[in-house]
């Protein structure tokens, strides 16, 4: 049975393609072994373990092992049940009834009830940074010990995806762990396969197997859903910010797993028979935003930048060429992928850019391009862009800060013209809506046509219908030069050859993974 389960996992992941391992070494068949400690080197220190508190990668990578949502995404980015057994939607599409799985226990030993779900959802709607995704929700009611009913103000096709989204996850915690708790103050008690034990900042987060865990179903459907089993006795998430230290620690066997490994270290690691490496292709894509309230209000000026950029060169410098030049706002491996508007991407045409600058009436005025050194690929990309725009005749000054510094500058619309960031893998296209809506965007973009399209997408329940609308959204974003996608950014993970059952995916999954003795 276990063998079959893991074969299913591998096939599912290979079909999707994301997280396709570059070298040998993915989920191996074999009987799972229980026991041992997995030492996992993560690049970042979690700013908090409260799952409702932020969108930071480390919060969710650790959190997915401790907490669960009502729904989750499988490896194909389809919504599947997690703490819910099943759900029903009313004929008008506005009322959802969730039937909870029975006998699910929290790590404090108490059984989960509908009251806990309501308390968690209420807290999320009050304080979570992603709460705007539930703006269309009118109310949540407890209709039975294991049933909750959610009423929406209007039909929202992205509602289930918002419930399942692991980025700032809508985790279900015991009522007493969340009620009246401000941000970052929830008790770390979940229903997941691993239970939180200890957090010593900069040293580790320790989680141990939860013996009373009740998995959903019998098959691992990949992604974050399906049957999840804790085979290791303990997992230690160790923050190791220095890439060289992550590589050395893997080689010496101090870590069983490490993420974000530098591309230049790959020949050295692939030659090591004690290790396996896997390429997460792609993991995210770097972006450039224009300040639409300032100089870049002028469409011709934005078009000039769009025409000038050479994404191949940018990718070469920013990530040692490890990536893919592609116009899709969703990755080629995802069902939402489209090349709509792609003709305007990667034009590499400085002559056209010069012409557009002339038409825009640009006269060598200073353009402030804010970037950061906390993510070196963003900084390197900004340096290349500066050079490319200089060739086209633009006077670009880089404003270099650390990440919090750049965010603070971004808040003041008089201080910047262009800004670098990146989009992590989006689980649903609606996750990008807030960039394009006037009410929520941070870069001053507004276009009534775009708003109308997004409203249409929100009401479109059928996949084909939704897909078509999001195709139009992407096309319009290119035509409007709302923002610029640079390239698909690949990253590398490495792990011990003794680690079995590991399937690379967009997030680190250490359930259903065991260490050979």
């Amino acid at each position, binding site marked *: 049975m276990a063998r079959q389960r893991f074969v299913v996992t591998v096939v599912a992941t290979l079909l999707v393609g994301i997280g396709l391992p570059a070298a040998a070494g993915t989920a191996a068949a074999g009987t799972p072994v229980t026991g041992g400690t997995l030492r996992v*080197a993560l690049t970042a*220190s979690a*700013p*908090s373990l409260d799952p409702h*508190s*932020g*969108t*930071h990668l480390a919060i969710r990578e650790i959190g997915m092992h401790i907490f669960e949502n009502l729904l989750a995404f499988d490896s194909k980015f389809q919504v599947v049940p997690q703490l819910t057994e099943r759900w029903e939607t009313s004929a008008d599409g506005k009322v959802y009834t969730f039937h909870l799985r029975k006998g699910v226990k929290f790590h404090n030993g108490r059984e989960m009830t509908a009251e806990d779900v309501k308390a968690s959802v209420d807290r999320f709607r009050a*304080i979570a*940074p*992603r*709460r*705007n995704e539930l703006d269309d929700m009118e109310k949540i009611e407890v209709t039975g010990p294991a049933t909750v009913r959610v009423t929406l103000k209007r039909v929202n096709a992205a509602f289930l995806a918002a419930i399942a989204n692991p980025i*700032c996850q809508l985790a279900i915690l015991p009522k007493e762990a969340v009620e009246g708790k*401000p*941000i*970052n*103050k929830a008790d770390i008690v979940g229903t997941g396969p691993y239970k939180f034990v200890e957090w*010593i*900042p*900069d*040293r580790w987060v320790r989680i141990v197997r939860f013996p009373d865990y009740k998995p959903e179903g019998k098959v691992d459907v990949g992604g974050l859903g399906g049957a999840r089993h804790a085979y290791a006795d303990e997992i230690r998430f*160790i*923050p*190791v*910010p*220095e890439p*060289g*230290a992550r590589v*050395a*620690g893997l*080689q*010496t066997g*101090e870590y069983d797993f490490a993420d974000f490994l530098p591309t230049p270290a790959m020949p050295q690691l692939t030659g090591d028979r004690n290790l396996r490496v896997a390429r997460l292709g792609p993991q995210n894509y770097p972006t450039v935003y224009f300040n639409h309230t300032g100089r870049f209000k002028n469409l011709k000026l934005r078009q000039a930048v769009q025409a000038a950029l050479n994404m191949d060169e940018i990718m070469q410098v920013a990530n040692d060429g490890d990536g893919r030049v592609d116009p899709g706002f969703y990755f080629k491996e995802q069902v939402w992928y489209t090349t709509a508007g792609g003709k305007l991407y990667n034009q590499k045409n400085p002559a056209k850019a010069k012409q557009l600058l002339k038409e825009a009436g640009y006269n060598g005025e200073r353009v402030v391009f804010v970037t950061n050194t*906390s993510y070196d690929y963003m900084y390197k990309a900004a340096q290349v862009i500066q050079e490319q725009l200089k060739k086209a005749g633009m006077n670009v000054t880089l404003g270099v*800060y*650390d*990440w*919090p*510094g750049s*965010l*603070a*500058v971004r*808040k003041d619309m008089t201080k910047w013209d262009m800004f670098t*960031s990146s989009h992590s893998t989006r689980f649903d296209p609606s996750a990008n809506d*807030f960039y394009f809506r006037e009410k*929520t965007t941070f870069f001053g973009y507004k276009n009534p046509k775009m708003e109308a399209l997004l409203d249409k997408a929100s009401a479109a329940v059928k996949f084909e219908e939704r897909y078509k609308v999001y195709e139009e959204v992407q096309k319009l974003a290119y035509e409007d030069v709302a923002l610029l996608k640079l390239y698909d950014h690949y990253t590398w993970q490495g792990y011990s050859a003794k680690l079995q059952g590991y399937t690379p995916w967009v997030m680190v999954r250490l359930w259903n993974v065991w260490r050979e003795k």
Partner: protein
Amino acid sequence: MTIYVLRRVSGVVPVLILVALGSFLLVHLVPGDPAMVMLGSDATPQQIQSLRTQMGLDRSLPEQFLIWMRQALRGDLGESFFLGRPVTQALMERLPATMQLAMLSLFFSLLIGVPAGILASVRQNSRWDQLVMITAMGGISIPSFWLGLFLILVFSVNLGWLPSGGYVPIWEEFGPGLRVLILPAISLGFMQAALIARMTRSSMLEVLRQDYVRTAKAKGLGWWSVTLRHALKNAMIPVITTIGTAFGVLLGGAVIVEIVFTYPGLGRLVVLAVQRRDYPLVQGALLLTSVIYVAVNLAVDLLYSVFDPRIKYE
């Protein structure tokens, strides 16, 4: 002596207030917002504002400073925005790790630096002297993170003798605790050893030329007695100053080495606190570092009188 110590300690109070004010202004003037760091780049301005209120950042700067000062005088340095624990607790958790690393580094630097300096001075212009001086020049020039990565490559990855990083409290498990400390302590201590060797050499050279040393030699005293008892003791004053400074640097400035060796010390805590704009933690850590510097300086001053009885504190 007691009166001197009390006078010195009371003189520290205005220094600490200035440090508190300076660090407060410094961290608040750097652009950045802890609420934005916590919530992520996609949070709306309203969400950021409500978290700022929760963190007490909606008050004016002078008001925030006065509140912080009032608490600090009562020994309460506030609560870290991110770690979910009081600043004093966070600092006290890290201090032992930093202390044990600093002590072992200092031990290495003294073990190497003082004998090397003595050797170079008594064999001035010899090959030994040249060897010590060239190595010391290397020690001062080689960045400690580079040395750290080099040591990891040789002793962890290739030879497999020592771990490449991590932390085990030495009082919990002595063997493993010591093993993880060796490489970072050498990386940190090498530069200090070089400084101490150079200072010992120049100070010894000065003393060795003094008349009383010549007299001692003329009296027929043995080499060890002349060099160690008569010369070294008198040459120690500037060396102790260097050692004091070195200890201060080791306690507060081990940031890069802590990152390379994944060592959870004070330096890494401060860097992370700055990166996240965790204001109470940055202020608390700077205050603690200043207290340590002041205490080390006082200890050094008091040690002078041990080595030179002519120095008296009244």
